[in-house]
């Protein structure tokens, strides 16, 4: 059996997810044994016509993005969105909450006409996405699970339960009990509750669980002493597209 051809592409993002991937170091090198990397801008320069697995990082936010992603989709057997920008638009989607003209002026000033831009969208808004690795930056445990499963030709198992579950499995002290803010009860698990595990609150970087009770979440945060405005604002940080 020949090794699967794997390619990585980046769209609108901070490229933190790709760098995060290189940080796996040994694990990542071990995985490379099982695949042929055919395109990976951060690490090498090569082109191939077809990919068994295409990993996409970043959101779709310009007209050229749309052309490119269609082209990649045509050449990829399996397409995986990497990181929250690719999965939901991520932080980029915050701009969608404002007037597009104002946003362009703020960012590019007088040059704004040279930079056509559209609302930041998830990859799935344009082409079919087979799997998602959520998180900002993307969650390493989920990435490894999906990567290994796909290389072996198995269906990855993706969680659709809250970060609280991972906290409970680890018996973390709940940060809400310490008067801190937390979006863990409505955020999708898969990161092993890394933030609460280190005494931080969950900012919701992996987006909401599929049955998000939005009003319940706002009410929950109010019960813990946070204003409705603050609650909604923080819920929007990584999930503007999903919550509007």
């Amino acid at each position: 059996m020949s090794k699967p051809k794997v390619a990585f592409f980046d769209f609108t993002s901070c490229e933190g997810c790709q760098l995060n991937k290189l940080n796996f170091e040994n694990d990542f090198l071990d995985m490379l044994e099982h695949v042929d990397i055919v395109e990976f801008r951060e690490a090498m320069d090569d082109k191939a016509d077809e990919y068994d697995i295409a990993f996409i990082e970043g959101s779709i936010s310009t007209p050229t993005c749309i052309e490119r992603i269609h082209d990649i989709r045509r050449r990829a057997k399996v397409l995986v969105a990497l990181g929250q920008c690719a999965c939901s638009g991520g932080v980029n989607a915050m701009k969608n909450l404002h007037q597009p003209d104002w946003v362009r002026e703020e960012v590019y000033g007088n040059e704004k006409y040279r930079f056509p831009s559209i609302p930041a969208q998830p990859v799935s808004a344009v082409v079919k996405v087979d799997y998602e690795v959520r998180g900002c930056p993307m969650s390493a445990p989920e990435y490894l699970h999906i990567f290994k499963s796909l290389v072996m030709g198995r269906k990855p198992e993706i969680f659709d339960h809250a970060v609280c579950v991972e906290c409970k499995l680890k018996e973390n002290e709940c940060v809400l009990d310490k008067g801190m803010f937390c979006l863990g009860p409505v955020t999708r698990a898969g990161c092993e509750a890394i933030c609460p595990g280190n005494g931080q609150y969950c900012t919701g970087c992996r987006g909401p669980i599929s049955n998000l009770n939005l009003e319940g979440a706002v009410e929950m945060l109010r019960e813990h002493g946070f204003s409705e405005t603050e609650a909604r604002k923080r819920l929007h940080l990584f999930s503007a597209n999903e919550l509007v």
Partner: protein
Amino acid sequence: MNYLDTITRMNLHEKYLLTSKQIPDFISFLKTQGAVYAAQKKGEQSYSYQYVEDPANVVLDYPRTIQPLKKFFLPPREELLSFDYQNNSYQKTDVVAEKRIFFGIHSYEMQGVLRLDYSFKKGNPEGNYLNRRENCIFIGVSYEPDEFHLANALGIEVENTEGLSIYLEPVREGYIAFVIDEAGQNLIQGFGKTAKVTETIHIKEKPAKAKIRYHYNRLPKVFEHVYTSQVWGQIAKKCLGCGTCNLLCSTCYCFDVRDEVSLDLQSGTRERFWDGCMLNRFAEVAGNENFRDELSSRTRHRLHRKFKYLTEESGALHCVGCGRCSKYCPAKINLGTTINALIDDFTEQQKLKEAY
């Protein structure tokens, strides 16, 4: 319940005085008899059962731990087997039943383990759980019920000694150790440094803060009539489906299984981990159908499991009133309040029936 009865019942046991100074010595002695586990501080204001390295870290006065005692018998994550694709083989992971002494646990916690025993013994007995349950000794301690404890209201008094070998009641000088069974007797004798107490110990009543409007015997009856109650919908407005109330429950036993291959893509392990009926994938079947899609039907199912289904089968309520589901629910949904709302609904129905 009449406290005089409790005092009489408790004083039938042999009693010894363990002074505050002797407690660490006693724990050190227990450590020579088996691996000792007890509540210890976890984080700023939480507690967790942990292996006792230093007797000085043991806490005897605490409201509850985050995870219940089930974590020792049904670990949150557990490797069931390891497999190898290359030679198409697998090996079950051994479960060693070391001798363990659980020191300073509350009566509802012990009852929780007894409920799990029931669940794991019936039908297909669960080997790993039952292996881990071998060779365990439980030493109980009294506690002050807080606003989340429902144990008293559910018929499990603080001084319930079923399953325990020794029960500790605080007094001015330290603790009175009530010897409940032979294993307890052996431990006290083996330690040897305690003075026998002959006078009657007047155990103080520990009033329950949380109340249920009906006697607990009537709860299964109430649950026969509230399947269509509006209460489920009201709770679902606040509920986030986070699953905390399942995972931390003393008597919930559901789990999920997942295979994970190693990076060599040749070998791997099968792991099981706690799951619960409040979570999305729990009732999902092929084709992405979910036969309990709504949070209202999930809460209804969860509580029917505690107060009706398993109760009809076993004769015991399968909520032991540890209060974890209320205390740790991020949305502050309180089990006592829910039960009282259901009772009100039931009472209302009965009134209407009588009027006809």
